[in-house]
Protein backbone atom coordinates (compact mmCIF):
# COMPACT_ATOMS: atom_id res chain seq x y z
CA UNK A 1 0.00 0.00 0.00
CA UNK A 2 2.75 2.39 0.90
CA UNK A 3 4.52 1.65 -2.35
CA UNK A 4 1.31 2.13 -4.30
CA UNK A 5 0.53 5.55 -2.82
CA UNK A 6 4.14 6.61 -3.28
CA UNK A 7 3.95 5.61 -6.92
CA UNK A 8 0.72 7.49 -7.43
CA UNK A 9 2.22 10.62 -5.93
CA UNK A 10 5.24 10.30 -8.15
CA UNK A 11 3.05 9.86 -11.22
CA UNK A 12 0.95 12.86 -10.29
CA UNK A 13 4.12 14.89 -9.80
CA UNK A 14 5.62 13.86 -13.14
CA UNK A 15 2.28 14.48 -14.80
CA UNK A 16 2.24 18.02 -13.45
CA UNK A 17 5.71 18.73 -14.83
CA UNK A 18 4.97 17.13 -18.19
CA UNK A 19 1.70 19.06 -18.38
CA UNK A 20 3.60 22.27 -17.71
CA UNK A 21 5.96 21.59 -20.60
CA UNK A 22 3.15 20.55 -22.93
CA UNK A 23 1.42 23.83 -22.10
CA UNK A 24 4.46 25.76 -23.21
CA UNK A 25 3.68 24.97 -26.86
CA UNK A 26 0.29 25.57 -28.44
CA UNK A 27 -1.17 22.55 -30.13
CA UNK A 28 -0.80 23.03 -33.86
CA UNK A 29 1.96 25.62 -33.54
CA UNK A 30 4.79 24.60 -35.82
CA UNK A 31 8.26 24.33 -34.42
CA UNK A 32 11.40 25.78 -35.94
CA UNK A 33 13.64 23.58 -38.06
CA UNK A 34 17.19 23.55 -39.39
CA UNK A 35 16.23 25.70 -42.37
CA UNK A 36 14.83 28.42 -40.09
CA UNK A 37 18.04 28.40 -38.04
CA UNK A 38 20.08 28.59 -41.27
CA UNK A 39 17.97 31.57 -42.39
CA UNK A 40 18.59 33.41 -39.09
CA UNK A 41 22.33 32.73 -39.38
CA UNK A 42 22.32 34.08 -42.94
CA UNK A 43 20.63 37.30 -41.73
CA UNK A 44 23.66 37.88 -39.48
CA UNK A 45 26.59 36.39 -41.40
CA UNK A 46 25.34 36.88 -44.96
CA UNK A 47 27.43 34.80 -47.34
CA UNK A 48 30.62 35.02 -45.28
CA UNK A 49 32.35 31.72 -44.51
CA UNK A 50 31.63 30.28 -41.06
CA UNK A 51 34.38 28.22 -39.46
CA UNK A 52 34.10 25.58 -36.78
CA UNK A 53 35.84 26.11 -33.47
CA UNK A 54 36.74 28.80 -30.92
CA UNK A 55 33.40 28.34 -29.12
CA UNK A 56 33.21 26.20 -25.98
CA UNK A 57 29.57 25.26 -25.45
CA UNK A 58 28.52 23.95 -22.07
CA UNK A 59 25.11 22.26 -22.34
CA UNK A 60 23.84 19.01 -20.83
CA UNK A 61 23.57 16.01 -23.19
CA UNK A 62 20.33 15.11 -21.46
CA UNK A 63 18.00 17.66 -19.86
CA UNK A 64 15.42 16.20 -17.52
CA UNK A 65 13.36 19.39 -17.43
CA UNK A 66 13.07 21.28 -20.70
CA UNK A 67 11.83 24.37 -18.87
CA UNK A 68 15.20 25.10 -17.26
CA UNK A 69 18.29 24.00 -19.20
CA UNK A 70 21.62 25.59 -18.20
CA UNK A 71 23.65 27.04 -21.09
CA UNK A 72 27.16 28.44 -20.65
CA UNK A 73 29.72 29.38 -23.28
CA UNK A 74 33.14 30.89 -23.84
CA UNK A 75 34.62 32.10 -27.10
CA UNK A 76 38.42 32.09 -27.48
CA UNK A 77 39.60 35.68 -27.87
CA UNK A 78 42.16 38.07 -26.36
CA UNK A 79 39.28 40.59 -25.85
CA UNK A 80 41.40 43.66 -26.67
CA UNK A 81 40.26 46.77 -28.57
CA UNK A 82 41.97 45.34 -31.67
CA UNK A 83 40.64 41.81 -31.41
CA UNK A 84 37.47 40.90 -29.54
CA UNK A 85 34.23 39.01 -29.84
CA UNK A 86 31.51 41.42 -30.95
CA UNK A 87 28.54 39.12 -30.51
CA UNK A 88 27.47 35.57 -29.82
CA UNK A 89 24.07 34.34 -31.03
CA UNK A 90 22.18 31.20 -30.03
CA UNK A 91 19.56 29.32 -32.06
CA UNK A 92 17.32 26.29 -31.50
CA UNK A 93 15.93 24.05 -34.26
CA UNK A 94 13.05 22.52 -32.28
CA UNK A 95 11.46 25.42 -30.37
CA UNK A 96 8.49 27.52 -31.55
CA UNK A 97 11.02 30.23 -32.50
CA UNK A 98 14.59 29.62 -33.74
CA UNK A 99 15.92 32.49 -31.60
CA UNK A 100 17.24 31.95 -28.08
CA UNK A 101 19.46 34.92 -27.23
CA UNK A 102 22.18 37.23 -28.56
CA UNK A 103 25.03 38.71 -26.54
CA UNK A 104 26.90 41.85 -27.57
CA UNK A 105 30.29 42.12 -25.86
CA UNK A 106 32.75 44.98 -25.53
CA UNK A 107 36.46 44.79 -24.64
CA UNK A 108 35.32 45.75 -21.09
CA UNK A 109 34.58 42.03 -20.71
CA UNK A 110 37.81 40.09 -20.04
CA UNK A 111 36.37 37.02 -21.74
CA UNK A 112 33.45 36.45 -24.08
CA UNK A 113 31.70 34.13 -21.68
CA UNK A 114 28.29 34.06 -20.04
CA UNK A 115 25.67 31.68 -18.65
CA UNK A 116 21.89 31.63 -18.94
CA UNK A 117 19.03 29.16 -18.53
CA UNK A 118 16.82 28.25 -21.48
CA UNK A 119 13.58 26.47 -22.40
CA UNK A 120 13.61 23.56 -24.86
CA UNK A 121 10.31 22.18 -26.18
CA UNK A 122 11.84 18.84 -27.21
CA UNK A 123 15.12 17.14 -28.12
CA UNK A 124 16.95 19.44 -30.53
CA UNK A 125 20.20 21.09 -31.61
CA UNK A 126 21.49 24.30 -30.08
CA UNK A 127 23.63 26.32 -32.49
CA UNK A 128 26.05 29.08 -31.45
CA UNK A 129 27.39 31.71 -33.86
CA UNK A 130 30.25 33.99 -32.82
CA UNK A 131 30.97 37.23 -34.67
CA UNK A 132 34.54 38.49 -34.23
CA UNK A 133 35.63 42.15 -34.46
CA UNK A 134 37.66 41.33 -37.61
CA UNK A 135 34.53 40.12 -39.37
CA UNK A 136 35.17 36.38 -38.98
CA UNK A 137 32.40 33.99 -37.94
CA UNK A 138 32.63 30.76 -35.96
CA UNK A 139 29.98 28.21 -35.09
CA UNK A 140 29.40 25.31 -32.72
CA UNK A 141 26.40 23.14 -31.99
CA UNK A 142 25.24 20.51 -29.57
CA UNK A 143 22.23 18.22 -29.36
CA UNK A 144 20.30 18.26 -26.08
CA UNK A 145 17.98 15.35 -25.40
CA UNK A 146 14.92 16.54 -23.49
CA UNK A 147 13.41 13.83 -21.27
CA UNK A 148 10.21 15.53 -20.16
CA UNK A 149 8.37 17.30 -22.94
CA UNK A 150 9.74 14.90 -25.55
CA UNK A 151 8.13 11.73 -24.17
CA UNK A 152 4.48 12.50 -24.79
CA UNK A 153 3.77 14.12 -21.40
Amino acid at each position, binding site marked *: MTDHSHGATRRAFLGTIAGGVALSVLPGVSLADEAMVAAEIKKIAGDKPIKDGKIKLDLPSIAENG*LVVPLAFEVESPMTEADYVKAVHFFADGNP*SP*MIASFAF*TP*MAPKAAAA*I*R*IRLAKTQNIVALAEMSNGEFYRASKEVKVTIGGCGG
Partner: protein
Amino acid sequence: MSTPTPRVRMPSTAKAGDVIEVKTLISHEMESGQRKDAAGKVIPRKIIKQFVASFNGKEILRADWHPAISANPYQSFFVRVTESGTFLFQWIDDDGSVYKSEQKITVG
Protein backbone atom coordinates in the same frame (compact mmCIF):
# COMPACT_ATOMS: atom_id res chain seq x y z
CA MET B 1 2.24 40.12 -11.57
CA SER B 2 4.29 41.36 -8.68
CA THR B 3 7.07 43.81 -9.48
CA PRO B 4 10.15 41.93 -10.71
CA THR B 5 12.91 41.91 -8.11
CA PRO B 6 16.51 41.87 -9.34
CA ARG B 7 19.18 40.04 -7.37
CA VAL B 8 22.89 40.48 -8.06
CA ARG B 9 25.75 38.54 -6.54
CA MET B 10 29.28 39.90 -6.96
CA PRO B 11 32.19 40.95 -4.74
CA SER B 12 32.12 44.45 -3.20
CA THR B 13 35.91 44.75 -3.16
CA ALA B 14 38.61 43.64 -5.58
CA LYS B 15 42.23 44.25 -6.53
CA ALA B 16 42.97 46.30 -9.67
CA GLY B 17 43.02 44.01 -12.69
CA ASP B 18 40.96 41.25 -11.05
CA VAL B 19 38.48 39.35 -13.16
CA ILE B 20 35.22 38.98 -11.27
CA GLU B 21 32.11 36.99 -12.02
CA VAL B 22 28.75 38.75 -11.81
CA LYS B 23 25.67 36.60 -11.25
CA THR B 24 22.22 38.10 -11.75
CA LEU B 25 18.69 36.85 -11.37
CA ILE B 26 15.34 38.63 -11.68
CA SER B 27 11.89 37.37 -10.75
CA HIS B 28 9.77 37.41 -13.91
CA GLU B 29 7.36 34.94 -15.52
CA MET B 30 8.84 35.36 -19.02
CA GLU B 31 5.41 34.60 -20.52
CA SER B 32 6.32 33.15 -23.92
CA GLY B 33 3.15 34.01 -25.84
CA GLN B 34 2.89 30.31 -26.70
CA ARG B 35 0.60 29.22 -23.87
CA LYS B 36 -3.18 29.15 -23.56
CA ASP B 37 -5.20 29.86 -20.43
CA ALA B 38 -7.92 27.56 -19.06
CA ALA B 39 -10.47 29.13 -21.46
CA GLY B 40 -8.26 28.35 -24.47
CA LYS B 41 -7.18 31.94 -25.08
CA VAL B 42 -3.55 32.64 -25.93
CA ILE B 43 -1.77 34.30 -23.02
CA PRO B 44 -0.01 37.33 -24.56
CA ARG B 45 3.76 37.41 -24.63
CA LYS B 46 5.40 39.41 -21.84
CA ILE B 47 9.11 38.89 -21.38
CA ILE B 48 12.19 40.83 -20.43
CA LYS B 49 13.67 41.37 -23.87
CA GLN B 50 16.98 42.91 -22.98
CA PHE B 51 19.58 42.95 -20.21
CA VAL B 52 22.33 45.59 -20.13
CA ALA B 53 25.33 45.67 -17.80
CA SER B 54 27.58 48.71 -17.56
CA PHE B 55 30.35 50.01 -15.29
CA ASN B 56 30.92 53.73 -14.70
CA GLY B 57 28.79 54.45 -17.76
CA LYS B 58 30.64 52.05 -20.09
CA GLU B 59 28.77 49.08 -21.49
CA ILE B 60 30.13 45.60 -20.75
CA LEU B 61 27.43 43.29 -22.07
CA ARG B 62 24.08 43.67 -23.82
CA ALA B 63 21.92 40.56 -24.03
CA ASP B 64 18.82 40.21 -26.23
CA TRP B 65 16.53 37.60 -24.76
CA HIS B 66 13.78 35.72 -26.63
CA PRO B 67 10.88 33.64 -25.22
CA ALA B 68 13.27 30.65 -25.03
CA ILE B 69 14.76 32.20 -21.87
CA SER B 70 13.50 30.45 -18.71
CA ALA B 71 11.26 32.13 -16.14
CA ASN B 72 13.14 34.08 -13.48
CA PRO B 73 16.00 34.69 -15.92
CA TYR B 74 19.54 34.08 -14.77
CA GLN B 75 22.49 35.78 -16.43
CA SER B 76 26.12 35.57 -15.39
CA PHE B 77 29.21 37.04 -17.04
CA PHE B 78 32.73 38.36 -16.30
CA VAL B 79 34.27 41.78 -15.84
CA ARG B 80 37.83 43.00 -15.26
CA VAL B 81 37.85 45.81 -12.71
CA THR B 82 40.57 48.43 -12.80
CA GLU B 83 39.01 51.19 -10.68
CA SER B 84 36.36 51.72 -8.01
CA GLY B 85 32.93 52.56 -9.26
CA THR B 86 29.34 51.58 -9.80
CA PHE B 87 27.83 48.82 -11.83
CA LEU B 88 24.42 49.44 -13.36
CA PHE B 89 22.28 46.49 -14.40
CA GLN B 90 19.08 47.11 -16.37
CA TRP B 91 16.37 44.69 -17.43
CA ILE B 92 14.00 46.00 -20.15
CA ASP B 93 10.47 44.57 -20.22
CA ASP B 94 8.24 44.13 -23.29
CA ASP B 95 5.91 46.73 -21.72
CA GLY B 96 8.71 49.32 -21.59
CA SER B 97 9.37 49.02 -17.85
CA VAL B 98 13.03 49.12 -16.86
CA TYR B 99 14.10 47.33 -13.70
CA LYS B 100 17.45 48.52 -12.31
CA SER B 101 20.06 47.44 -9.80
CA GLU B 102 23.23 49.32 -8.83
CA GLN B 103 26.24 47.73 -7.15
CA LYS B 104 29.32 49.56 -5.89
CA ILE B 105 32.78 48.04 -5.94
CA THR B 106 35.89 49.30 -4.19
CA VAL B 107 39.16 48.54 -5.95
CA GLY B 108 42.18 48.84 -3.69
